[in-house]
């Protein structure tokens, strides 16, 4: 399982890291919709991580509708339109939530926040132009 890495430097719980990395694989298309994914035990062996952690990650992913586990058939990536995009959008929302929180801490109104977002987008577009 090259490409999977549980980092100790990452302070988040292991199961979250696993979830994120599975979602990433789906988002970039390495794991296609409906594709069989490693069993809990197999992934636990490959990642050298406890079964209970992988199990938790899979349960959460199933709850989020990202994967589906069928008794006796293992787990597969869920079928869903543009799952990759959905995941990216969920990721975006997370970042935006954080930005909103920080903005609130700084005492910004939502208009201030919008203005700031716009200027950031413009600056990053400038950077990408040749």
């Amino acid at each position, binding site marked *: 399982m090259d490409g999977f890495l*549980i980092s*100790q430097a990452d*302070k*988040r*719980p*292991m*199961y979250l890291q696993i979830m994120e990395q599975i979602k990433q694989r789906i988002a970039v298309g390495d794991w296609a919709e409906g594709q069989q994914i490693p069993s809990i*035990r*197999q992934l*636990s*062996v490959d990642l*050298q*991580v*406890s*079964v*209970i*952690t992988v199990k*938790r990650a899979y349960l959460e992913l199933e709850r989020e509708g990202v994967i589906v586990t069928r008794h006796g058939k293992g787990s597969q990536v869920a079928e869903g339109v543009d799952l990759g995009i959905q995941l990216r959008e969920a990721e975006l929302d997370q970042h935006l939530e954080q930005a909103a929180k920080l903005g609130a801490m700084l005492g910004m109104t939502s208009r201030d926040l919008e203005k700031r977002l716009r200027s950031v987008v413009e600056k990053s577009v400038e950077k990408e132009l040749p």
Partner: protein
Amino acid sequence: MNDFAVQFQGVSKRYKYFTLDNIDLQLPVGQVMGLIGQNGAGKSTTIRILMGLVHQDEGQVQVLGRHMPEEQIAAKWDIGFTSEDLRLYDAMTLEWHMGFIRSIYSTWDAEYAKLLLKRFGLVAEQKMKGLSHGQRVKAALLLVLARRPRLLVLDEPTTGLDPVARHEILRELTGAMADEECSILFSSHNTQDVEQISDQIAFLDRGRLIDSSDKETYLDRWRRLRLEVPAGIGLPALRGVIAVKQEGRIAIATANAFEADLPNAYERTGARVQRVENMTLEEIFVANVEHSREDVNV
């Protein structure tokens, strides 16, 4: 036969200067249990009692469905044991040891043994006295792993090892878990290893079991909250918080029974929650020991 690989009920053992007091433990088949505690907390005693090498003064011990120490012979056919203070025969080679074990156990997997030699970087023809500490630990582990026992009982399997050796060992231990019937009980004061591969955690301190839980739930119960406390506000004792350290306006609260509402509870008192952090098992270890010693008024 039995759903549990290991069961301790009310186990006690009294020594002159140390008492193991009323230990209850359960390890379901197919899972990994990490025993953590300081040196002298009782980990080795617990493991010795598990192996039938030491007889408990009180309580029941069942390993793979067998009562210990009475049925230790039957149990030991299915158990692989190694310990930090265990040595192999200096004057003999690793190959000789492999032959010795093979002559006793019919479950010896010669192919796997050969693979382990390669993975662990060991030379079978070498005498044990020529091996470094790390190599000896790996050799003892090889003898146990190649038998594919139903239960691995390991007393400090990674203590004193360099990161590469530790990684090699953890790889084989988690590899062994590919077999659903295989269970592992190991003790360590290396919390990283326990955090990484354990399904269950048991926490010993001074002969008492101060915590026993599945790992994910356990890690989830602990949080560190960084607070900013305005002048004139005293932080109340909140449920689930076991320690608060404050200097000036900055406070750090350690919670061992975290609930989603806790940050709000602090905010309602006027303090500001700057950050809520998960804690590593090492941080939990220290906080837990400090807390439990306070409790007993030591």
